[in-house]
């Protein structure tokens, strides 16, 4: 590398830029009044604030693109591709059927155990993946957080949105299994969206809180998989609600996934259900979601400084 030559080149470049810039600027008429009246005030934010719904609505297209991006890149360079979306609940179903049903002797209230387990697993897998993906989403998109501005809330939510496709495939597979087991579809199936929504709210709420905390404390990354694993056992995925003593049901309902899984299964497979538990879980979901929005909003101010 020749120092002199490099410097000369550098200087020559600047002269060229200068001329180009002049040309460029001359063609701008500078005194016309601006057409747009967009005005932006950037000031310190303190305390708890609601999210800016207008801004979110305005950039909704970006949300769509982020979801699309996350779907698109998730299975890039994999051989099985989209099959991974159902691989997890399917294998879990087989393993659970073998161990918990055949060996440990857990019995359902009617439906065949594989169908019972799979219907619960579809929803649970969506929840578990949503929480773990979204909690790592901000840290995984550091460049976006520190170099560009758009509503940050999109990052964790988009990673959950992208999993919606997996959920859809999963639900379709549940229907396929119902056909296989000749289990008739009940009108209760109309309530499926409610339970999906509840799950979405709970996952989003937790995802927002955890992703924000993860920016500050990378401990989250290690804690989440562990707690998700534990969560499987305190949710009625493997076993029916009957195994939970009645006195503990409401406490059990504080776990948002208890009620969602119970309700989801009930609407698909019928049988007895505990509405109080479902409502308690729904309430927890809504609460988690709102808490997530506010906490995220509060913590997002410092993301770029810390991440």
């Amino acid at each position: 590398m020749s120092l002199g030559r490099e410097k000369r080149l550098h200087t020559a470049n600047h002269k060229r830029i200068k001329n180009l810039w002049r040309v460029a600027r001359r063609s701008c008429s500078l005194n016309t009044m601006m057409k747009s009246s967009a005005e932006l005030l950037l000031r310190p934010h303190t305390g708890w604030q609601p999210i800016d719904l207008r801004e979110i609505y305005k950039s909704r297209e970006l949300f769509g693109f982020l979801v699309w991006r996350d779907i698109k890149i998730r299975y890039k360079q994999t051989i099985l591709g989209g099959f991974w979306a159902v691989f997890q609940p399917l294998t879990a179903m087989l393993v659970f059927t073998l161990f918990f049903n055949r060996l440990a002797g857990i019995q359902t209230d009617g439906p065949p155990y594989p169908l019972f387990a799979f219907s619960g697993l579809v929803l649970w897998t969506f929840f578990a993946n949503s929480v773990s993906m979204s909690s790592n989403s901000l840290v995984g998109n550091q460049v976006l957080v520190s170099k560009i501005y758009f509503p940050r809330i999109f990052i964790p939510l988009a990673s959950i949105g992208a999993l919606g496709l997996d959920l859809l495939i999963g639900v379709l597979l549940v229907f396929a299994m119902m056909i296989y087991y000749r289990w008739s579809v009940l009108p209760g199936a109309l309530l499926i969206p409610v339970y999906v929504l509840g799950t979405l709210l709970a996952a989003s709420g937790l995802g927002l809180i955890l992703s924000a905390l993860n920016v500050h404390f990378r401990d989250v990354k290690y804690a989440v998989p562990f707690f998700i694993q534990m969560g499987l056992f305190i949710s009625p995925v493997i076993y029916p609600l009957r195994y939970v003593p009645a006195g503990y049901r409401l406490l059990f309902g504080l776990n948002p996934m208890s009620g969602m899984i119970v309700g989801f299964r009930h609407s698909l497979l019928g049988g007895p259900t505990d509405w109080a538990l479902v409502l308690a879980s729904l309430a927890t979901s809504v609460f988690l979601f709102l808490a997530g929005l506010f906490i995220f909003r509060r913590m997002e101010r410092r993301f770029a400084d810390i991440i």
Partner: protein
Amino acid sequence: MVPVIEVNHLSKKYELGVSRPSEDSLRDMLMHGLRNSWRTLRRGSTTDQNSSEPQWMWALRDINFSVELGGVVGIIGMNGAGKSTLLKILSRITDPTEGYVRLRGRVASLLEVGTGFHPDLTGRENIFLNGVMLGMTKAEVLSKFDEIVAFSELEKFLDTPVKHYSSGMYVRLGFAVAAHLDPEILIVDEVLAVGDMAFQKKCLGKMGEFGESGRTILFVSHNIAAMVNLCQKGIVLQQGQLTFEGDAKSAANYYMGAVSGEEKKNRSHTTDLWSARGRLPQFRPWLCKLELYDGQAIALDGEMAIGSTIRVLLQFLLHQPSANFDARINFVDMYGQVIFAARSTYDRDRNWGERSGQQEMICEIHDLPLTPGEYRIEAALVIDEKCVDYVENAGHLKIVGSDFYGTGKIPSVGFFVHKQSWHLK
């Protein structure tokens, strides 16, 4: 006229380390207790908790300025002066701690070209993703898609994942998207300084095309020459404070003065090059020190008159034996132009043979004919035509006015002085 960019008492505070959370963090509320108990658990004692005072620094302190419609303003300052922080606040990436900024018009800020590109997505997909991320609507991207592609000259690679792009292609695609943003206020962080010249020309031409409405540009730069060339107005930031605001040329002058003023505090005739800051990562130290002396071998503390003789002593370590080493010294003016280059290989009687270990060379420059001003000295060591070490700030020289021509007039215009004679016919 109402200013387009209005920065009012803007301050930004950063915590240093993690000694203590600031009063406005959730961590304070939620985690503080937890942290303490965790520390207690870990250390088995309760001492050393928050014993230190809150540690923070002001990255920006009480910044005020405004930019009119159509203004092109450059912001310069040394590393750590707060340029990036200011840029981040203006780009909404981080909140100010105090004060406010009012932006009137559609803003686009480019802190980096191609931010948000995903390596696994194709060029086509990234154009959409990046465009929408930078604030375009999908329809806008769609309508400008062909233009963007044509602009980037990457038609053939549109369906190739960008991870297979060369860095030049990557930058071109990034530029192409950014060039079609059509903002009213553009905040740029020297991104214009990248990419090859032919492409830069296209970018600037594109900006000209925007044309109809006045475009306001805020250009943050580490390069004074670029600032003077591109901007009408200049703003100097020093240690988080705005210390100068005026036309670009005066800002550059002020900045140079400020830099040398700061250096004056610890100015001496000798500069330690071994532990010099800002050495490029590909270099390990070979250069040890640089010393300045005048013609009588008296130490020179950085100021001399026009046309004086200067002796530069360069000490370096040859990590390997070499007969073909070349010590180089450049005198660089405030615009970053090399005004004069001295090289040991320019010495005709050069016959030093193979050397190794520590060497000292003295370069005597007779009657250095530079006009008054501030000059930076660069030092480099080249072995077998390959640069092995280079220090950008190897010394500082201020040439002060003197009666070089012996006429009672102090020359100041131009780059150099030269003896001349005039005859009236």
